């Protein structure tokens, strides 16, 4: 009887830990989708997820060989967390470290970051070659959107 009770307690504890663990991994379901936006000078309608990843990780630095890519990101906003998880497949901490690694080894310039989606969109609309993202709840103004192909 005593051992069955102990087994029950153990199942509850382990089960609880697994729920907490996997909940932490999958994150909140309330996240909105993100939309990739770029300056109208960027002559690209769609990109694969891998191509976007290469752009946002600084592995690709030019649009169609002519225009410098200027990556911009959001600071700690929900859309940023969703973007890093879904597009570059990194946590926000890993994404930040990736770019610091690029900067301190001379392999790239750290993306400009913004505290609001409106400010990010205004920068993208005003700067040739700029690319960033906003949540789908915000209407894109003065920018072009890039479709993400699976």
């Amino acid at each position, binding site marked *: 009887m005593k051992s069955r009770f102990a087994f029950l307690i153990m199942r509850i504890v382990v089960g609880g830990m697994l729920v907490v663990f996997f909940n932490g991994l999958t994150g909140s379901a309330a996240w909105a989708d993100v939309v990739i936006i770029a300056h109208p000078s960027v002559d690209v309608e769609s990109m694969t997820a891998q191509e976007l990843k290469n752009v946002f990780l600084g592995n690709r630095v030019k649009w169609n060989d002519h225009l*410098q890519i200027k990556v911009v990101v959001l600071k700690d906003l929900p859309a940023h967390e969703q973007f890093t998880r879904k597009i570059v497949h990194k946590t926000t901490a890993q994404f930040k470290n990736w770019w610091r690694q690029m900067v301190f080894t001379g392999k790239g*310039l750290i993306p400009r970051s913004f505290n609001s989606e409106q400010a990010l969109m205004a920068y993208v609309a005003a700067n040739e070659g700029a690319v960033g993202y906003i949540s789908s709840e915000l209407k894109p103004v003065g920018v072009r959107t890039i479709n993400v192909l699976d």
Partner: protein
Amino acid sequence: MKKIILLTILAAVFFTAHAFASEFGDVDIHGFISQGYLQTDKINFLAETKDGTFQFNELALNFATILSPGLRVGMQLFAYDLGDRGNDELTVEWCYADYQWKEWLGFRVGSMKTPHGLYNEIRDMDMLRPTIFLPMGVYSEVIRDELQSNRGMAAYGLVSLGGLGRLSYLMQLGQMTVDKDKGFARAAELLAERNFELQGFTINADTKDIHSGYTSNGVLKWYTFIDGLMLGITGFNNNNMDTTIRTNGSLNNIPFEYQFQSHITEWWGMVASGQYEWYDLVLTYEYFRSDMKTTTRDSETYVVPIFGVDGKNEKSPLMAWYINLSYRFSAFVECAYTYTEYYENINDRDGTSYKESGLDDYLAWAKSSVFSTRFDINDNWILKLEYTYTDGQLYFNPAENDKLSRYWSMYGIKVTYTF
């Protein structure tokens, strides 16, 4: 005094740059400064650590800009101190131009960070990992200065393998940065002094000249079709490094001078790496092998062991490996555990040759368990705590010790500010 003035200027630029970074137009300025504290229990390690030491810091400031689409230039100033190494001497850590023609082909010319394993290029940058020290068998403190950067040229790129993932590559050809007052030369002097001491002589060794031949480096990283899994290999090859060391001492009160030249005919190293990122969990494994063929000239008078070589044309096949598991619990805290083993001679892991020479066998290995915790106080400040328990004494140790101990512990604290 000169060093203090230079560091004062650098510190002034550092904080001014941070305050007015946005006013520098198209030039990006970033930097970091770190200060650590080390304490050991039974031996001095790297510095006078038994009494605790603050001689453990780093400082860097870098500038970069884009000149035209695909063309970027930049440089980084760097200074560090770790016991009697570095001594906060300001150096240009890297300075190069980078042109990316296509995603799969780019070129760099100048002084570039040396690729070696996953972490050598970022070993000075505390903010990029949870641990304070990198596993020293793979990332040697002996040749930290030499592995800092190479002058030369490089080609690099990222190639898509379709459904198999992506392959990134880097080929670098140049010359290792060597200095008669740094890393390799300083280590050679210290080892010569200690080895003469074992034979009953007290000497002073001084490097007269050091010259490095060409160095080639290569990197292949396969970002596999399994999301988060990366496999890589890095290697270097250096030929014809000459070190001339002059010694003077006395034997039965009769002074003598002696000069010898260590000629490395071939020196190669290879690191195989694997890393798996699964959300906030990162698992890393690296395996290092290195071999150095050395001839010590003018060894008829004395046998001069350097880096385990007995004075003739010998090999020294080093081997080290480590496994690291890190997990980020929240934006604030990340913990890591590292286990590492390091052997001076892969064919003598139990130290038999040391025993036969009347020395302690534990000089032939070092096995460490490392527990690290990192706190991200905010975007700029991080704090790290680390405890290391080691069995063995193989790690190169420039600190003076009257008595060695097979088992010893080290505690470290480090604070880093980055912008």
